[in-house]
């Protein structure tokens, strides 16, 4: 996690923020279980098969989905393929550097990918064209262009939107069709500051927090993926509390992004 431009968060700021939390409010006035304002704009890159532009507070990401045919993995000859890559572009933050993904980007991409994959959002069997020979490959690529915390949830929102509205031609001569979609996973990332658990952290909150937990769930109330990060710990009760928060907040987000689903 990057330090802010002036180095680490100043001790004065930290004291102020923690003091404020005692009143149940965060620095920007949000409640603990409240997301920042967000918009998820569909079809930002019209030539991609699916795309979305997400603004989550001051965090901005572009999600692009390319769907091409290719070979399946040898051990899953009748399943389509999905890959997820997150580029923390140097334009997004003063200390981000160009180059191959670092461990932060890799973790983010893998957590986001796991949420989508384990939910079985896309029905991979339906992406098989000729078993062992030809399947559809869904390339999900994400550009992080402006960074103010909580990349994971911004990415997941954008992917769910982009996949949901993606259109592609399995046969170049044939009609455009939608991806076979099973459900709509939403990740909710929470951090712990002192003993408080709050969702959708800003960068400053990420810097102040001791531990992070992402819980991805689907509309059926099932947990699909979890990931704890950072040096601190959670009690088991805190984790259960976080799962409840994820379910409740995630349902709101899902409806916000997709409208009445199905």
């Amino acid at each position, binding site marked *: 996690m990057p330090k802010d431009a002036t180095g680490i968060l100043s001790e004065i700021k930290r004291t102020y923020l923690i003091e404020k939390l005692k009143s149940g409010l965060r620095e920007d006035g949000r409640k603990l279980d409240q997301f920042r304002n967000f918009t998820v704009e569909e079809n*930002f*890159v*019209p030539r991609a098969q699916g795309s979305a532009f997400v603004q989550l507070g001051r965090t901005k990401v572009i999600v692009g989905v390319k769907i091409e045919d290719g070979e399946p993995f040898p051990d899953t000859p009748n399943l389509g393929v999905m890959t997820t890559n997150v*580029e923390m572009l140097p334009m997004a*933050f*003063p200390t981000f550097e*160009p180059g191959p993904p670092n461990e932060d980007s890799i973790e983010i991409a893998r957590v986001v990918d796991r949420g989508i994959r384990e939910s079985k959002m896309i029905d991979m069997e339906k992406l098989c064209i000729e078993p062992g020979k030809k399947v559809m490959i869904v390339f999900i690529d994400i550009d992080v262009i402006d*960074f103010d915390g909580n990349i994971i949830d911004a990415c997941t929102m954008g992917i769910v939107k982009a996949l949901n509205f993606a259109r592609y031609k399995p046969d170049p001569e044939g009609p455009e069709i939608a991806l076979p979609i099973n459900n709509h996973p939403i990740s909710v990332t929470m951090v712990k500051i002192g003993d408080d658990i709050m969702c959708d952290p800003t960068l400053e909150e990420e810097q102040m927090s001791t531990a992070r937990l992402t819980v991805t769930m689907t509309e059926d109330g099932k947990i699909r993926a979890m990931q704890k990060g950072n040096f601190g710990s959670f009690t088991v009760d805190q984790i259960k509390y976080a799962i409840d928060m994820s379910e409740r907040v995630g349902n709101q987000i899902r409806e916000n992004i997709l409208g009445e689903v199905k």
Partner: protein
Amino acid sequence: MGTPSNVKLLDENGIRLDGRGPQELRPIRLRTDVLERADGSAMIEWGGNKIIVAVYGPREAYPKHTQDIEKAVIKARYNMAAFSVDERKRPGPDRRSVEISKVISEALTAAVMVELFPRTQIDVFIEVAQADAGTRIASLTAASVALANAGIPMRDFVVGCTVGKVEGKVVLDLSKEEDNFGQADLPVAVLAKTGEVVLIQMDGDLSKEEFNEGMSMIMTATARIHEIQRTALSEKYKEMDMGGAE
């Protein structure tokens, strides 16, 4: 330049596939302040191109051996998003983007008062979200605005355009099909006030007469495009006057 093909790029009236006349530009839309972390930013939509530019700096050049004791070093990084082209592109720089980053850096250096900031670097990060022919000159045109948006002192604006040759005719601002199947491509960037050329590349096949014709078209076009740059910046200032939105 591409291989011969059956595509008919000009009709009998000299009208192009997308309906434009020979000297007509594609629509251009240019905005500033599209990012919050960057010191300056701009987004340009030019035809189907969609490009975001962020500027950071001047800041201490790093690593140290890259410092120039006499001036700021401008480091442009031109990058294509994996989803920006028809076939998904592997992330990371390829030889083409290394070359484009270099010529963009050089062109911008001609315009910025680099002598004011010795030992520093000015980073210009260019992300092509959707590519549609002419990305390098669209990037330069937006980068110039992003530098101004970052408050970096400039002696002039850099503004670019391309001409090309299709079916033997010189035409302005090549589209993707014209770029793929045309006979020549000539991207040029100039300083807005002086008309001096700070970027020129060319490939294909041009007679000297065709070259001269193309350069005149570019000079006319860049003057119009420079107006779009000025408007984008003044709209920002208008907003500021009104304590406006965003």
